[in-house]
C-alpha cells in the first residue's frame, strides 16, 4: 500500500457526496476533524429523513417539498420565501457559510429502527451534518438520540410528544413544533369559551407514549378550568375499527369526547364517532362535542366532512397572516413560494420543516461554524420572528420553541380541499409557556453538546 494514504476522510474529499467515518481513528493519528462530517469542500450536505412509505407517507412527501424549497432558497434560487421576512439577516442566498447546500433523503417508514438506519446512512455514507424531518415522536426521539451520539444536529420535524423536549431531550436536538402540553394549554380557554366550564369528558387515547402525554396534558388543562374527566380508555395502536370504544360513550354521561389519536387512528376514530351520530345528540342538556387536540390538514382531508365543527390545535396554518395580521409575517411569503412551486398551500409539517432548515442555516452563519456545539450555542435562547409563527424563542433549557398556538375548527362548508379548517383563536405564547421543570417534562437531561470528535 505504498501509494495509499490512511487519513481521516473528508480532508481529501472534493465532493460532498461521499462517505465519512463515524468517529475518531483508532490506529492512525492524522489531523482529526473538529467534528463529525466537517464540510471541507464547496458544499454542505443536509439529511432529510421523512416517512416515504407507510401511513404517514403523504405527510412525509409534504415535508420533503418544504425541505427542497428551503434548500433552493438557501442557495439563492426561487423567490427566497421567508428569507426576506426572517428577523435574522445572515441568510443571503449564498448557501450556508458560502457553501452550496446539497441534501440527501431517506425513508423512516415511521419505525424507530428504519429511521435510525436511514439517518446512519446519511451520516456515515453521505456526510450529512444535520438531520431533519420525521412525522412521529417515537422516530424523533430515536433519531435525536442517534444524532447526539454521532455528533450531528437534529432539527425535529413533526413531533408532538412532551418527551421529545422532556425526558428524552438531547443537547444536539431542537424542536420547532409545539407539544402536547402547549396544545392543551392553548385549547383549554377556547374550549371553556365555546362549550362552557361545566363539561364531562370521555377520552380515547392511543395506547403509546405520545397518546399518554397528550391525555395527561389535556386532562390537567381542562380540569383546571372546571371540566371533569369521567373516563379514559386506551385504544390499541393497531385498531382500525373504534366502534366498540365509541359505542359506550353516550351512555357514560359524558358530553365531550376527546380523541387523543393521530393519523389513521384519528381519521378512523373520528369517522366512527360521527357515524354513531354523537354530534347530533344532546347530553346533560348540552350539545355533545368532539375535540381532537392535535390536528393536521392531511387528517382533516382523510376525515372528510366528519371534521366539520371539530375543534383542535395546530402549530401553524397557511391563512394565519391573512386572518390574524402582520404578527405572523412570513406566512404569506412561504405560502406564495410553496404554492407557486407545487400548486397547493403547505401543511403545518411543511412549515415546521422549512423553518427548521432556515433556523439551522442561520445558526451556522451566526456561529460561523458547522460545529454542532457552535450551532447549539447559536440556537440556545435565540429569539426570532418572521418565520410565520410570530415572535418565537428557542429556549435554552430544553431546546423547545415557544410561540403562539393556533386553535382551529373544521369548516362546515369547505370551499376546496385545502381549505378544511378555520382559525378560531390564536393563543399567545405566554399562555402556553411552562417552567422547564414542569413535572410533565421532568426526568430528562440535555447533557452536553457532542461534536463527535
Amino acid at each position: 500500500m505504498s501509494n495509499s494514504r490512511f487519513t481521516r476522510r473528508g480532508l481529501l474529499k472534493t465532493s460532498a457526496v461521499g462517505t465519512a467515518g463515524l468517529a475518531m481513528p483508532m490506529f492512525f493519528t492524522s489531523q482529526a476533524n473538529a467534528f463529525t462530517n466537517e464540510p471541507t469542500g464547496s458544499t454542505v450536505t443536509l439529511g432529510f429523513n421523512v416517512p416515504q412509505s407507510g401511513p404517514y407517507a403523504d405527510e412525509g412527501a409534504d415535508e420533503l417539498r418544504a425541505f427542497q424549497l428551503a434548500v433552493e432558497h438557501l442557495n439563492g434560487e426561487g423567490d427566497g420565501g421567508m428569507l426576506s421576512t426572517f428577523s435574522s439577516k445572515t441568510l443571503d442566498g449564498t448557501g450556508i457559510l458560502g457553501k452550496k447546500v446539497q441534501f440527501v433523503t431517506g425513508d423512516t417508514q415511521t419505525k424507530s429502527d428504519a429511521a435510525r438506519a436511514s439517518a446512519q446512512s446519511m451520516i456515515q455514507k453521505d456526510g450529512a451534518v444535520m438531520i431533519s424531518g420525521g412525522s412521529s415522536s417515537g422516530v424523533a426521539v430515536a433519531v435525536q438520540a442517534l444524532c447526539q451520539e454521532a455528533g450531528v444536529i437534529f432539527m425535529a420535524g413533526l413531533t408532538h410528544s412532551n418527551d421529545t423536549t422532556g425526558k428524552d431531550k438531547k443537547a444536539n436536538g431542537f424542536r420547532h413544533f409545539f407539544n402536547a402540553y402547549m396544545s392543551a394549554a392553548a385549547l383549554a380557554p377556547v374550549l371553556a369559551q365555546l362549550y362552557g366550564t361545566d363539561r364531562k369528558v370521555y377520552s380515547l387515547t392511543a395506547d403509546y407514549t405520545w397518546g399518554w402525554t397528550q391525555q395527561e396534558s389535556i386532562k390537567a388543562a381542562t380540569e383546571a378550568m372546571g371540566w371533569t374527566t369521567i373516563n379514559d380508555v386506551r385504544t390499541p395502536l393497531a385498531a382500525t375499527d373504534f366502534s366498540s370504544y365509541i359505542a359506550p360513550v353516550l351512555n357514560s354521561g359524558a358530553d365531550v369526547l376527546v380523541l387523543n389519536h393521530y393519523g389513521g387512528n384519528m381519521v378512523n376514530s373520528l369517522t366512527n364517532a360521527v357515524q354513531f351520530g354523537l354530534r347530533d345528540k344532546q347530553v346533560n342538556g348540552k350539545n355533545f362535542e368532539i375535540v381532537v387536540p392535535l390536528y393536521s390538514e392531511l387528517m382533516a382531508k382523510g376525515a372528510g366532512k366528519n371534521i366539520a365543527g371539530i375543534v383542535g390545535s395546530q402549530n401553524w396554518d397557511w391563512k394565519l397572516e391573512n386572518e390574524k395580521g402582520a404578527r405572523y409575517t412570513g406566512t404569506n411569503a412561504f405560502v406564495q413560494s410553496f404554492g407557486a412551486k407545487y400548486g397547493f398551500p403547505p401543511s403545518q409539517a411543511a412549515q415546521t420543516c422549512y423553518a427548521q432548515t432556515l433556523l439551522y442555516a442561520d445558526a451556522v452563519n451566526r456561529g460561523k461554524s458547522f460545529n454542532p456545539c457552535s450551532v447549539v450555542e447559536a440556537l440556545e435562547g435565540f429569539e426570532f420572528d418572521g418565520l410565520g409563527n410570530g415572535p418565537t424563542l428557542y429556549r435554552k433549557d430544553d431546546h423547545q420553541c415557544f410561540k403562539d398556538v393556533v386553535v382551529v375548527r373544521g369548516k362546515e362548508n369547505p370551499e376546496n380541499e385545502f381549505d378544511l379548517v378555520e382559525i378560531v383563536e390564536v393563543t399567545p405564547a405566554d399562555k402556553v409557556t411552562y417552567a422547564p421543570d414542569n413535572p410533565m417534562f421532568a426526568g430528562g437531561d440535555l447533557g452536553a453538546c457532542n461534536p463527535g470528535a
Partner: protein
Amino acid sequence: MLGLNRRDFAMLLLVAALALFAPFILNPFPTASGLSQFNAGYPDLMQRFVIFGIFAIGFNILFGLTGYLSFGHAAFLGVGSYSAVWMFKLLSMNVLPALVLSVVIAGLFALLIGYVSLRRSGIYFSILTLAFAQMSFNLAYSVLTPITNGETGLQLALDDPRILDAANTAGSVPVTSLFGLEMRSAVTLDLAGWSFTFSVGYYLCALIMLVAFYISVRLFRSPFGMMLRAIKTNQQRVNYTGLNSRPYTLAAFVISGMYAGLAGGLLACMDPLAGADRMQWTASGEVVLMTILGGAGTLIGPVLGAGFIKYFENIFSKINDSILHQWFSFLPDWMENLLVNIFYPFVGKGWHLTLGILFMLVVIFLPGGLVQGGQKIARKLGFGKKSNSDTPAE
C-alpha cells in the same frame, strides 16, 4: 479442515473472504461519481447485512431443516435487543455480557413458545408462533412500556446505574465497546477516488457471523441436522425409527431462537436502541422472505437473501428525483424528464414496489431462490460443477 469437508470449507473461506473485504466489495464506485449512490460499504449497512445474515441463518436452521415455518421469529430478535440494552443500562457498556444475556433470554423465550407451538404442525404451527409474536409486540408497545419504553424504544440514559463501569462524567451517553475497543471507532482509507471505511463494530459482527455460519454448517452436516431433515421429509418414519421428533424440533426451534437473540443483541450493540417494531409480524415476515428469497435449506442462501433485502431498503429508498435528474442531466431535457418519470416510481418512496416485483420475479423464475440463480449463471459460464452454493441433500 475444522471438521468440514472440502467443499464446505471452501465455502466458509469464501464467506470469510467476502466478510473481510466487504468494505471494498460493497464500495465499487468512486465517491465522487454519480453511481456512488449504489455504494453500500458504510459501517451501519454492512453491520445490518451480517446481523440480518445471522438472523436468517438461524431461521434457516428451523425452516430449512425441519420445514416448520415460524411466523414469529422477530419476537426473539426483539427480546434479544431488549436484554442487551438492559445489560448496557444496568451492568456495563461491554458488549460481551449483553450478547450472552440476549442469547440466553431469547433461548428461554424460544423454549417456552416452542414447547407450546410445536404441539401443532403446518399452518397451525405458523399461526401459533405468529400469535405469540404479535402478543409480544402489542404488549411491548403499550402495557409493558416500563420494560420496553414502548413506542420510542428502550434507550440509554445518562443516569443509568451501569454498576461495573466508572461513573459517567462526560455528560454524554457512553458508547458500546468490547473491553475498551469502541464499537463505533473506524478508520478510513482514501485510495484514488475511492474511500473505504473499516469499523470495529462491523468486524466484530462479521466475526460473530462467521462463527454462526460455521456452526450452522457443522449442524447441517451433523447427525442432528440429518435427523431434522428426516423429520421434514417423513415424520411417520422418524417415529417408527425410534426417534422422538418433538425434542428434535424443539431443539432446532430453540437454537434458531438463540440465533435470532444473538442478532437482536448485536443490533443493540451496534446501535443501543431496542424498538418494539423489531417484533412486529412484518419483521418476522421479513426473515421468512430473506430465507426463501436466498434459498431455503441452503447454507449461504439466507445470507444472500438478507443482504438483498437490506440493500434495497437502505439504498433504493434514498434515491430521490433530484439524484435521478443528476444522473440523466447529460441528456436533452425532454429525455431527462421522461427517464426520470419512468424510473421515479421505482426508487425513493417507491422502493417497496421494486422489492415486490423482484420477490415475484425471483420466486417465479428461480424456485430455489438466489442460490439457484447463482448456480444457473455458474453453469452458463461453463463451470460444470455447482460452484459456491449448496443443495440440501447430496
